[in-house]
């Protein structure tokens, strides 16, 4: 099985706070990993390190063999856009674009033309159950709907690796099940998903768990 993520003594310190503290783990292609742990334990920081949004202050992390922190800013942005889909804890949609246009953003930034992207963006909205909201602006969408637009956007460039921060936090349990089923099927198709979650029912969709406590990452022994 090939390696999707390899973290070696990966650390990130903010002042006195060890947000991530010497984490060592590997994630194989096709894994669906849940990252669990109390608030403030470093879960979002870990995703940001993997996605190259935050430089490590110690150790390193590779995604598909590439150490993002060694690339220059432009290469890093391009790598991320092509290979990684990120779903943030706060969905950060662009307020002036409607739902399908927001979904199209990663492809637009890669040089695509908006009119060529409408069909594929709308198709992705359908996968997250939002086909009838394609023309709504973020301000006209509920929190859970915005979250699903952000999920569709993360899938736009067909990334190998999806990093999701509480992707079902704003969803009711049935819609949440649909989204988790979608992430699960992406893994079965050979994508890799790392998902932060507080909800045990969500973590149970994953094939593995990483637990975080005060920045330290452990993998519970199988029972």
């Amino acid at each position, binding site marked *: 099985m090939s390696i999707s993520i390899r973290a070696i003594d990966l650390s990130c310190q903010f002042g006195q706070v060890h947000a991530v503290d010497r984490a060592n783990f590997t994630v194989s292609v096709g894994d669906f990993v849940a990252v669990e742990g*109390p608030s403030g334990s470093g879960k979002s920081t870990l995703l940001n390190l993997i996605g190259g949004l935050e430089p490590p202050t110690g150790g390193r992390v590779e995604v598909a063999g590439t150490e993002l922190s060694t690339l220059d800013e432009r290469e890093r942005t391009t790598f991320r856009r092509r290979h990684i889909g990120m779903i943030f804890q706060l969905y950060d949609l662009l307020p002036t674009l409607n739902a399908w246009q927001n979904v199209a953003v990663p492809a637009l930034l890669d040089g695509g033309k908006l009119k060529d992207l409408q069909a594929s963006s709308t198709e992705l909205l359908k996968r997250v159950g939002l086909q009838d909201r394609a023309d709504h602006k973020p301000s006209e969408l509920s929190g859970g709907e915005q979250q699903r637009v952000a999920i569709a956007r993360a899938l736009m460039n067909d990334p190998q690796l999806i990093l999701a921060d509480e992707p079902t936090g704003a969803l009711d349990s049935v819609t949440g099940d649909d989204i988790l*089923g979608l992430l*699960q099927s992406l893994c079965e198709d050979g994508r890799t998903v790392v998902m932060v979650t507080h*909800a*045990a*029912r969500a*973590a*149970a*969709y*994953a*094939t593995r*768990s990483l637990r975080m406590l005060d920045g330290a990452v452990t993998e*519970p*022994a*199988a*029972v």
Partner: protein
Amino acid sequence: MLVYRCGIVGLMSTQQILLSLLDGHPSYGYDLKREYDERFPNLKPLRFSQIYSTLSRLDRDGLVTLVGESGGNGPDRKQYAITESGVSDLETWLSAPLPVDEAPKGELFLKVSLALLSGRDAQPFLEAQRARHMARMREVTSQKRNADSETEIVVCDFTLFHLEADLSWIDHTTERLSRLKVEFKR
């Protein structure tokens, strides 16, 4: 205060309760009962007969040993101490997770309490229990994924929501352990 109510204190638990109360200092049946009643006013009371019969069985099995007999008659003349194999039996029990489906809430709570009461860390048990619950939740989730009917899905969901509630309690208690410890100091 302990406001937990629990149905049954099983045979196994009676043994472990007595071992954990004996851990650290020898005691008489009467004192063990008094300490138990004080510590766990909301759990099912232990009867004297149950305590004495369990003690003599533990003695026979080498988990406790008779250290003194005072004058008078009746079973309470006997003072018992825990043996090395008693300590190791207790420790094995304290750290072993419960079977998920039969884990009655009282048993989860009892193990945490007895670990703290005997001055041990309850975290390894909570972690092991968490892992076991999560493994079971993964099984049921994959069963749900392969379900043929909506009925089967909601039946799986019933189990999943209940296991999730246990797990939330396990996480919550893990977070509160250091505060809880203080209350159990004796």
